[in-house]
């Protein structure tokens, strides 16, 4: 192995930051576009962390947004209900960041617990159980009055900004990349490729499956917290099954096991989704026909089916861009 001297990914992210900031300051980029970029970056965190569970370790999870819900509600309650932070006070930034991390830690603990059934279950059974857990988590929040119940947790201060979200997304990708490139990551990959063989060469498959769930859930929790502090709301419907499927589409569109693919798909599909929303509304206005927003999801569903039918391996397959890779493997 030969460790690169220049961390290309860091340079790429810094360049991206500077370009976006300049475009925003010169008002070429309006607030709406910046908001979509922020959303895309949060989806980058969700997609790469789900990729660790689904793509790298090969454990099919359908409840990723359940972890995000835990992160959103825990951090949202901390900043809004307990600490009562205010955006105008600059000293609030540190407690905000700690709240986000606390949300991630609680989500990681939930992921740790959910990782256990995965020891006994495989494939589609695991998919159903994670779906069930995700729905249970959502139902629980739907019924806790202290966090708003079905109305959702309102009035969360808007702490998430471009800088915070970009740094979080950068750290997520780097940590997951380093994890994948470490011996732990190799062990996870071997579970995906052939669990029995992995076990026979002495890999503790249980430990690595639980580890994948715990790490994945931690980052999903972070993403949930950032999302809640971006849109100033944590609502049970944000974290439903369909949302988990949206993240799933991202990793399958980008390529299972490819972080580059997840990042590209997170941006591509978030922009596509917003584009479709605007396009459908414009079309409905122009023609006067009753074209509803549901068509957006119809397009999404067809996209998922066509990816599976005609490009099973996704955009990137299992390849990784040279910008993201840290080490060369022979």
């Amino acid at each position, binding site marked *: 192995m030969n460790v690169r001297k220049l961390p290309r990914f860091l340079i790429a992210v810094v360049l991206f930051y500077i370009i976006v900031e300049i475009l925003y300051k010169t008002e070429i980029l309006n607030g709406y576009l910046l908001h979509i970029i922020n959303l895309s970056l949060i989806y980058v965190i969700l997609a790469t962390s789900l990729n660790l569970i689904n793509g790298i370790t090969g454990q099919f999870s359908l409840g990723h947004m359940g972890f995000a819900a835990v992160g959103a509600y825990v951090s949202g309650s901390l900043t809004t209900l307990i600490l009562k932070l205010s955006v105008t006070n600059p000293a609030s930034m540190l407690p905000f960041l700690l709240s986000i991390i606390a949300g991630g830690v609680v989500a990681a603990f939930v992921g740790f617990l959910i990782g256990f059934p995965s020891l006994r279950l495989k494939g589609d059974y695991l*998919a159903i159980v994670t779906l069930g857990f995700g729905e249970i988590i959502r139902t629980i929040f739907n019924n806790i009055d202290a966090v708003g119940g079905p109305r959702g947790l309102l009035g969360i201060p808007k702490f998430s900004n471009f800088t915070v979200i970009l740094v979080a997304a950068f750290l997520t990708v780097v940590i997951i990349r380093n994890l994948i490139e470490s011996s732990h990551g190799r062990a996870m990959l071997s579970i995906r490729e052939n669990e029995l063989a992995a076990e026979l060469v002495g890999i503790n498959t249980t430990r690595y499956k639980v580890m994948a769930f715990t790490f994945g859930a931690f980052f999903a929790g972070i993403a949930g917290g950032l999302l809640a502090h971006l849109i100033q709301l944590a609502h049970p419907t944000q974290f439903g099954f369909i949302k988990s*499927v949206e993240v799933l589409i991202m990793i399958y569109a980008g390529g299972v096991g490819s972080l580059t693919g997840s990042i590209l798909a997170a941006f591509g599909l978030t922009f596509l989704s917003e584009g479709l929303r605007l396009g459908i509304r414009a079309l409905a206005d122009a023609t006067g026909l009753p074209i509803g927003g549901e068509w957006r999801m119809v397009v999404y569903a067809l996209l998922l089916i066509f990816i599976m039918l005609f490009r*099973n391996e996704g955009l990137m397959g299992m390849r990784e861009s040279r910008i993201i890779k840290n080490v060369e493997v022979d």
Partner: protein
Amino acid sequence: MGSIFSLQQILNGLQLGSIYALIALGYTMVYGIVRLINFAHGDFFMIGAYAAYGSFYMFNALVAGRSGTLAFLVLLAAMIGGASIAYLTNKFAYKPLRYKPKLSSLITAIGVSMFIEYFFSALPAIGPSYRSFPDIIVRKEIRLGNAVISNLVIIDLAVAAILMVGLTLLVRKTTLGKAMRAVSQDKDAARLMGIDIEKVISFTFMVGGAFAGAAGLLAGMTYPRIFPYMGILPGLKAFIAAVLGGIGNIPGAMLGAYIMGIAETFASAYNSLIGEGIAFAILILVLLIRPRGLLGEKIADKI
């Protein structure tokens, strides 16, 4: 209301269980034969309900007054609706992926399910909102001790029972049933014996779809409200029932469905939140304690 465990509640549970059983059978048959959780199965149920709804208004004028004939035609329409969508789904979405990794089919199934739901709610003729289901059969109430039984309970139980007996006969006594059992046991050996596997799979999907369609009609009559997303939760619960009984096992699916129906009715009578969550709690318990399901080890009836 009386006690949670009254006769009334048991009947309500059996009624709900009958609907779950008809859906669960399709899940379990398809799983038994292609090892695929057909996520779109709950949507076949929804299509059945809409086919019944549409055909009711179509036939109502034709056979004015004769509600028995009308009910039969509507049931037929619901079953044909369910079977057609199941046939198309299998043909266009699952067949091309038959020999690809299993997860591809599972993800496609999620995609198909989303497509059907959103496509229906996007169509202006159907739309995302609730519609009230017409009274196909005049509701009557029969007093039995301190329980009030609607004639719908009897109809639901009877239709489900007739269909389930029919299915059991089909699977056990006919050549086609034998082929289905053979394919579920060993696809390759079945092919070597000259069985057209794709035909058998297609037929299994259609039977499953027809049963889900019939369940859609019964659900529409019993809980008279239909909407494009109505299949999601019953579909999931019926799947859980199939897992509870031992997926791939036909009597298991029926048993699991009635247990689920009764458990859910009792739990809902106690607290509506627990009623919604009990299905998942049962699922997780079953998978942790006895992943094969209640009748999972009996291989003889696997199809």
